[in-house]
């Protein structure tokens, strides 16, 4: 029963991510992307990564996607501004994507690892455990990510406030 739950959720993620790229209206695209991220949250819960699920929910669905929606509303998109790409280019894009997919799937098949995911450590995804790893092994990346956020802040302010 639970295994079929995984396949159901996997099907839903693929379906909604296809809807993201094939709907004409960008606002609908954003909404479908939010649903896709929600299915990812369920995947994380199934994988026993609770903290990641919550963070995905709060940061991705709550903040980043709302920012996308916000920008979409900020720009004046009453008329359909997106002229369709020529069909030839679209076909070329789909073929290129399929080639990538076939390559990836082929290499997975060649590797032939098919052991089931068995949780060795049930407390793996808890906040306490993650914090210990984050602040011991990954201390330097953590500090550097603050620099990344700082530069993003400066960049965003500089770009969005051009007249000042």
């Amino acid at each position, binding site marked *: 029963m639970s295994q079929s739950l995984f396949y159901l959720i996997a099907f839903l993620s693929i379906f909604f991510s*296809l809807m993201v790229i094939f709907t004409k209206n960008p606002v609908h695209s954003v909404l479908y992307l939010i649903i896709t991220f929600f299915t990812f949250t369920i*995947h994380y819960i199934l994988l026993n990564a609770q903290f990641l699920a919550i963070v995905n929910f709060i940061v991705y669905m709550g903040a980043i996607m709302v920012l996308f929606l916000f920008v979409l509303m900020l720009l004046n998109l009453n008329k359909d501004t*997106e002229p369709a790409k020529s069909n030839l280019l679209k076909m070329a894009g789909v073929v*290129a994507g399929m080639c990538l997919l076939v390559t990836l799937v082929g290499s997975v098949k060649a590797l032939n*690892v098919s*052991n089931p995911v068995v949780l060795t450590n049930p407390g*793996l995804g808890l906040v306490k455990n*993650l914090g210990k790893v984050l602040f011991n092994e990954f201390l330097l990346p953590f500090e550097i990510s603050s620099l*990344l956020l700082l530069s993003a802040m400066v960049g965003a302010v500089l770009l969005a406030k051009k007249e000042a």
Partner: protein
Amino acid sequence: MENITQAIQGIPLNHYILLSAVIFAIGVMGVLIRRNAIVIFMSIELMLNAVNLLLTAFSAYRGDAAGQVFVFFIMALAAAEVAVGLAIIVMVYRNTNSIDINVLNKLKW
């Protein structure tokens, strides 16, 4: 109760890899076939999330928390990327009154 818990973790690792590969490929296709800059950005988010899912699956498979910590960094990166990228899109819209990427062909030769 206990057997439900056990049954949830019986999915072959291959299926997680395949799922991530499919979603990543969908993201690549989205970048290639759409012209709206914001939709292209969303496709990039889709690709980042496919990688996040794969990292988490590997982390559960190996019993190593490092994979999940990587996902934090990817999320911080995604937030920074979105902030700067959307600011660039807004500037492009202010200057050209469109977010069609084919308008941005001044550097083409």
